[in-house]
């Protein structure tokens, strides 16, 4: 094939070359190929904002640590963290993910907190072939909720999730509830939503198997304002352990009505999930908040260091409290651990700019994080790595600025986490 050099072609080529030089090599080239772009999607505003309120601080820490870039396989990259707020809206979450993929050409996506955030982002990433790392929701709702079938091979190639599942809740609860002598009668209040139904289907049979009598008045709708019939059932059954997965306003209404009926004097362990993750939920309960049992996916006493930022759990939380004046929350470490795992995944890939290469590295990834080792080789399914659920209790603080201390009372799912206090009976 012969090529004739026309004057027009020569001018065009020359112009393009000149243009490229004028823009500057550092900008034109480094921007497109030497920058690793990481999308970070979380609920900063809207009803789920409790989860996202610490993300700004976490991102500041990560950006400061990554300001000088990273070197992977001998190549230096700058790192750009593009954070987006879902406003707690699932359809907006998917939209943001597609926008980051198509318009910002992110190399990797991070999605944090709740099925409403993670599932739509994961779906968008799976469809577009962009690797996605997520944490903070039960993995069953992520994996099966998006169409995977038990017993069959994982249908996902680009999306990966790490963190707790129902089994971790089970282990933590069994371990926690053995700490106090009870009649082993558990009253449960699970709402009719994704979390509540998954917990009812999987956790309740396991509790029954472990010798607990479970009193379940049935699913209730979120937004219910009167719980008289459930409370009557619990009183009649003589429950001494109570477990629930409500949103905070529902729980505040429920527990006050329960206390009006005297239920709080009979319950020895009030085990909360979803509500009670953050200190404000407990403070809102006033005097009824003391000695509420909880379970956390991260705690400042976790004995791990973030490879990305070099921060320990205590350093991260102290820094947050000093900067914002607010009490630390477990979301600090969870969000940072997602960034730790993301950086580890990019480092493990042959070429971090190649989406397939990153996705191929993830199933064998064993990453250090501020939440401990995240090991995708030892997960329950190919795309999932286990994470702990540690039993805790909100105990009235004896000193310091905050009303309640979040005390670790058991560590069945991660024995490296130090137990810092004894579980107190709620009605004591």
């Amino acid at each position, binding site marked *: 094939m012969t090529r004739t050099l026309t004057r027009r072609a020569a001018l065009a080529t020359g112009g393009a070359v000149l243009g490229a030089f004028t823009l500057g090599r550092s900008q034109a080239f480094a921007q497109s190929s030497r920058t690793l772009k990481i999308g970070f999607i979380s609920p900063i505003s809207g009803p789920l904002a409790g989860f996202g309120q610490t993300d700004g601080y976490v991102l500041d820490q990560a950006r400061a640590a990554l300001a000088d870039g990273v070197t992977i396989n001998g190549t230096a990259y700058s790192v750009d963290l593009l954070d987006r707020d879902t406003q707690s809206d699932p359809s907006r979450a998917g939209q943001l993910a597609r926008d980051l993929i198509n318009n910002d050409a992110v190399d990797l996506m991070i999605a944090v907190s709740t099925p409403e955030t993670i599932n739509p982002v994961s779906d968008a990433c799976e469809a577009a072939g962009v690797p996605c790392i997520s944490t903070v929701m039960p993995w069953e709702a992520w994996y099966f909720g998006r169409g995977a079938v038990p017993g069959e091979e994982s249908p996902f190639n680009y999306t990966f999730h790490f963190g707790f599942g129902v089994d971790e809740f089970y282990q933590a609860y069994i371990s926690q509830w053995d700490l106090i002598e009870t009649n082993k009668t558990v009253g449960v209040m699970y709402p009719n939503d994704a979390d509540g139904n998954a917990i009812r289907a999987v956790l309740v049979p396991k509790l029954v198997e472990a010798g607990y009598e479970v009193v379940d008045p049935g699913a209730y709708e979120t937004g219910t304002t009167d719980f008289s019939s459930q409370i009557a059932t619990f009183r009649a059954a003589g429950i001494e352990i109570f477990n629930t997965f409500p949103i905070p306003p529902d729980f505040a209404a429920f527990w006050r009505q329960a206390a009006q009926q005297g239920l709080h004097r009979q319950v020895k362990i009030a085990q909360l999930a979803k509500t009670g993750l953050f200190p404000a939920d407990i403070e809102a309960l006033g*005097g009824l908040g003391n000695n509420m049992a909880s379970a956390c996916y991260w705690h400042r006493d976790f004995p791990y260091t973030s490879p990305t930022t070099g921060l320990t759990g205590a350093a991260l939380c102290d820094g947050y409290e000093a900067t914002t004046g607010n009490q630390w929350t477990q979301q600090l470490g969870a969000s940072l651990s997602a960034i730790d795992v993301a950086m580890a995944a990019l480092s493990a890939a042959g070429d971090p700019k190649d989406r397939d290469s990153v996705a191929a590295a993830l199933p064998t990834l064993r990453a250090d994080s501020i939440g401990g080792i995240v090991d995708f080789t030892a997960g329950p399914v190919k795309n999932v790595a286990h994470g702990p659920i540690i039993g805790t209790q909100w105990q009235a603080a004896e000193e310091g600025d905050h009303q309640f201390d979040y005390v670790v009372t058991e560590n069945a799912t991660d024995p490296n986490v130090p137990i810092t206090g004894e579980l107190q009976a709620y009605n004591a």
Partner: protein
Amino acid sequence: MMGLVISAALLGGYYAILATGLAFMYSVMNIINLAHGALIVLAAYGLYVLGTQGIALPVGIVVMSVAMFAFGMLLHKTVLSRASGGGELLPLLATFGIAIILDNLMFQTFGADNLSLAPFVGDLSWASFELPGDIFVGQLSVYILVAALIIIALIETLMRRTDLGRRIQATSQDRATASLLGINTGRTAAIATGIALATGVFAATAMGLRSAWGPYSGSAQLLFAFEAVVIGGIGSMWRVLIGAMILAFAQSIGAAIHPQGFLIGGHLTFLIVVFYRLPTWRNAIAKFRQARVQA
């Protein structure tokens, strides 16, 4: 059974206090205030802030009532009076917009935390009276019901026995004629808005003591208030109480049948009432009756 009836009646009192401001605004100004829930939440934040400053809740309620009254007048002068000149849809959209703005402003100002007023009143939020037959009745719920009765009685007295009330009624019935008779209709409507918002402070107190709220809790409050108003119908404020009671009993009966039936019971009742109120349905029912009589 007795316990169920009592708790349903007390729940009705709570819905009545939620719905009063909404019903008042609709009956005197024909404005369906979609910002009603957000304004209740705003008042609750005000009470919370005053509470953290060490101001006792009853004092806080008085302060906030005055503040919300003033805010209501301002809201009327700046937004509602202009919007209500533009047909029926415009005030609806305007208040919807106010609700969104308030939701997000409150989020910006107060953050995402769930707050409650209960810590300011010691044990009151879970204290109870013990009745014979092992029935416990929450003290707070009783006080809320009493407050609802007092507020409705006060508004009724105001509307029927005072000069201001007659002015408000005249303004709501025929603005042009009222102004011909020398009534300052703009000012009267602004005062009515202020009263509606001031009653919202009591709703905020009830909500804040009963449960907890966040910046986006307004729409849930609006829903129950709206259902109570529609079920009760307009005319007298006592109909709000009736509507609230019907809603509460429908929900409690729903919950007694099935735990998930609580909200459905309320919504179903609401729908039945709405369908019954539709003229076409009423005509159909009347025709059906006629046909049966003839047959």
